[in-house]
C-alpha cells in the first residue's frame, strides 16, 4: 500500500463552477423558504442544504478523486448519524 502517488490536480475553473452552483442554490433556498410552504419549508431548506453539502464534499473536499474506502467511510458516518436521529425520533414522534 504505497503506490498512491497519483495526485489529481483540480483545475481552477471547476472550483469556480462549483462556487457558482453553490451560490445559486443558496439564493434559491432563500427564495423558496420565503414562500409559504407550511410543512415543507423545512424539508425544502434541508434538501437544498443536502445538495450543497454534497457539492462541497465531492469537489471542494476532493472526495470525487479519493479512494473508494474514504467515500465509504464518509457515507457510513452520515448513515450512522441519520440512524441515530431516526431512532431518537422514534421516541418523540410517538409520545402520547
Amino acid at each position, binding site marked *: 500500500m504505497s503506490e498512491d502517488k497519483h495526485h489529481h490536480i483540480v483545475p481552477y475553473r471547476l472550483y469556480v463552477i462549483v462556487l457558482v452552483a453553490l451560490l445559486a442554490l443558496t439564493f434559491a433556498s432563500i427564495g423558496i423558504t420565503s414562500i409559504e410552504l407550511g410543512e415543507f419549508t423545512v424539508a425544502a431548506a434541508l434538501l437544498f442544504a443536502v445538495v450543497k453539502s454534497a457539492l462541497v464534499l465531492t469537489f471542494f473536499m476532493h472526495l470525487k478523486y479519493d479512494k473508494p474506502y474514504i467515500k465509504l467511510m464518509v457515507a457510513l458516518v452520515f448513515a450512522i448519524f441519520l440512524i*441515530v436521529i431516526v431512532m431518537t425520533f422514534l421516541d418523540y414522534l*410517538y*409520545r402520547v
Partner: protein
Amino acid sequence: MHTTNAVNGANYLTYQGKYKGLLGWILSTDHKRIGLLYLYSIAAMFTTGVLLGLAMKFELLAPGKTIMEAQTYNATFTVHGVIMIFMVVVPGLPAVFGNLMMPIMIGAKDVAFPKLNLLSWWLYVAGVFLVLSALLFGSGTPDTGWTFYAPYSFKSGTNLLPAIFGAFVLGFSSILTGLNFLVTIHRLRCPGMKWTKLPLFIWTLYGTAWIQLLATPVIGITLVLVALERVFGIGIFDPALGGDPVLYQHLFWIYSHPAVYIMILPAMGAISEIIPTFSQKHIFGYKAIIVSTMAIAFVGYLVWGHHMFTAGMSGTAQYYFSLLTFIVAIPSAIKVFNWISTMYKGSINIQTPFYWAVSFIFVFMVGGLSGLVLGALATDIYVHDTAFVVAHFHYIVFGGTGFAFFAAMHYWFPKIFGRMYDKAWANVGWLIFTIGFLALYSPMFYLGMMGMPRRYYDYLEEFHGGNILSTIGSWVLVTGFIIIVVNLIRSARKGEPAEMNPWHSKTLEWTVTSPPPVLNFEKEPVLGEKDGPYNYD
C-alpha cells in the same frame, strides 16, 4: 526526534533517547513506553476506584450509618463510577495493550502519529487531574452519579464543573487514540498482512476505535451543554425553561451505550488471542468472529434506549430498543461459541492466562445473560435501577473487561517486561480473586430481584443478609487482588528472564525479543501465504 546515537543493549525499557530518566518516559513517543505509562496511570486510578468500592461495600455492611454520611456515600459512588468508566475501562485495554502490542502485531515500527499518541496520554493525565481537583477544591465532591442526569446535575451544589470538563478531556484523549489506531491499522500493516490475516485483537481494536471516534463527541457536546447550563442557565435541558430531561438521557446513552462496547470489544479480542495460543490450535471461525466484532460495533449504536425504559419514552421507542438489544446479544453469543469450539481437539496448556480466559468466559456469560433480563421490557421495568443492574454491569464490566485485562496482563507480561512471573502465586491469586468476585456480586442479583434500588446509602432490614455476603466477598476479592499485584510487581523487577515465545504463539509480537527492541523489528517482517496469526501445526 532524530537522534542517531548507538543504543546499547537497547530494548524499549532501557534505551536512552533524547531525554534522561523520567523525562525519557513521559516525553517518549515510543508506543511501548506510552503503553506502559498508561498501564501505570490506569493502575493508579484503578486502585483508587477499588478503594472507593470497598468503602461503599463497608458502608452497606449494615443498615444505617456504618462509616460515612449519606453525602459522602453519594459522592463515593459518583467518583467510583467516573473513575472506573472514564479512566479505567474505557481507555483500559486499547490504551495499554493496544499501545504496547498493536504496532508489533501488525509488523509496524510505531503507530501512525507517535506525537499525537503521546498527546493522548497527556490529555488523559490532564483529565484525571481535572476530575480529581473536583474532590479537593470547591464546594464538595460531585454527587450526581456517573450519569450526570439532568436536572439534578444543575441543582447539585457540588463542584461539578471540573469533573465535567475532566470527562470531556478524557473523551478527547480517547478520540485521539482511536484516530491514531485507525490510521495505523489502515496504513502500517507489514507486507502480506492482509485484512484477513490480522490478529483478532487488532480487529477488535479497529472496531473499538470507530466507536471511540463516532460516539465520544456526542457525550462531549452533552457535557458542554450541562456545563453551559450550570454557568449561564441556557435552558437546554432544564424543564423549568422548557428543556426536556429525557433528551439529556438520550444524548448521554447515545455515547454511553456504545461505550460499553468500547470496554468489552478489546477484552474479547485479547481472549481471542489467548484461547488459540493455549489450545495450540487455529481459532475456530476466524471470519465469523470478525463479522461479529463489526456487528457489535455497529448495532451497538442502535440500542441506547434500553437504559431508558422507565424514563418516559414512547412505547414505540421502547419496543424497538428492546428488539435491537436482543439482536446485539447474538454476535456476543457467536463469539462465546467460537471460543469454546476452539478448545475442541486442542492441546490445552493450562497456564495462568488460560485460567483467566476461562473464568472470563464464565463471568461474561453470566453478565451477558443477565443483560437479556434487562433488555426485555417487562423484566427491565421491574429491575431497572436496582441492585440487579449493579450486578449485571459489574459482572460484565469488571468480570468481563477486568478479567480480560488480567488475562492479557499475564499473557503479555513476559513480552512487556522480559521476565516471567511466579506462576504458582499467580494461580492462587486468580482462585481467591474469582471466589471473592462471585461472592461479591452474585448476592446483588438476588437483592435486585427483591427490589432493592441502587445508589442507596441505607436500606431496609430485609436486605441485610445479601449485603453481608457481598461485603465479605469484597474482602476476599481484594486479598486475591493484592496477591496478584504483588506477584506482578515483584516479577517485573526480579522475575526469571523470559523466553522470546514462552507460550508458543504465532502472532508477530512473539517473533521479537522480550522486551521488544526500540523500533520493534530489525527488518520489516513479511507475511508469506502460509503464515498467519493462528496457523499452528
